């Protein structure tokens, strides 16, 4: 068992959660944005978390534990039976829901009918997402603290 591998796991998760918080911040910042490079109003972004493929050590251990790889709950069909030691962001996707229409004929981005398309961003949803990201970030950072404590204490073995 490698104690530093645990710090990679937790550190990767902290990175992913920070990215999620950044995406939430971008969504909130652009809540009223009606112009984007691709045209039309800003679209809400989501992050998609995916578990990393299990490292060979874990897979060996699983294979010896179960005799086969099919008896564990599958994360998805492609990596059935693997234990994932970490997490990564597999994609940042755009919300495809229709933009909100607000009647404002004086607005430079108003359509022929006088309605302006605004991004469909609900501050409540974003805040809840941000809270989740913050809590998960804190959880993983306390895991890093714990791992540091373990590594430091293992150094005590050689001290006399």
């Amino acid at each position, binding site marked *: *068992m490698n*104690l530093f*591998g*645990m710090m990679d*796991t*937790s550190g*990767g*998760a902290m990175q*992913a*959660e920070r990215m*999620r918080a950044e995406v939430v911040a971008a969504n909130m910042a652009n809540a009223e944005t009606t112009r984007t490079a691709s045209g039309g109003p800003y679209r809400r972004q989501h992050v998609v*978390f*995916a*578990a990393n493929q299990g490292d060979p*050590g*874990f897979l*060996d*251990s*699983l294979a*010896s*534990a*179960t005799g086969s790889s099919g008896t*564990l*709950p599958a*994360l*998805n069909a492609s990596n059935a039976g693997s*234990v*994932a*030691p*970490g*997490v990564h962001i597999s994609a940042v996707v755009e919300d495809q829901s229709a933009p909100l229409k607000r009647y404002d004929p004086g607005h430079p981005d108003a359509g022929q009918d006088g309605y302006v398309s605004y991004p469909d961003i609900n501050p409540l949803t974003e805040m809840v997402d941000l809270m*989740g990201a913050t*809590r*998960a970030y804190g*959880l*993983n950072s*306390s*895991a890093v603290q*714990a*791992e540091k*404590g*373990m590594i430091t*204490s*293992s150094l*005590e*073995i050689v*001290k*006399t």
Partner: protein
Amino acid sequence: MDMQIETRLSCQLERYLDLAAGQAKLTAANMANIDTPGYRAMGMDFEAEMRDAMNGVDQGRAPRRPHIKAVDGLIARPDGNNVSMDRESMNLAEAQLKFKVGVALLRVQNQNLLDAIHADGK
């Protein structure tokens, strides 16, 4: 009477530290995936693994990897993920304490050995 550097207790402690580190690693993996849709919390039966490791020490068997299995009885959220923040926090604290206990005991072992080495008072 023969004298060896590695005692039965120090071998057992070695396995104990390995298992405690393994438990912490599993917990860290679960914590990292707290927001991954469809992820299932993984765990191991620490007591059963430790019993097996102690038998292994007595029989001179090489250490083997612990059995890792999905944890039963957790409530899954709508996205299919069943990692519980509180359970993982408790597990990590427990693994950390176990590790520190193992380290402290191993230090005592080493200290005893050093005391024997320095028994001539020099």
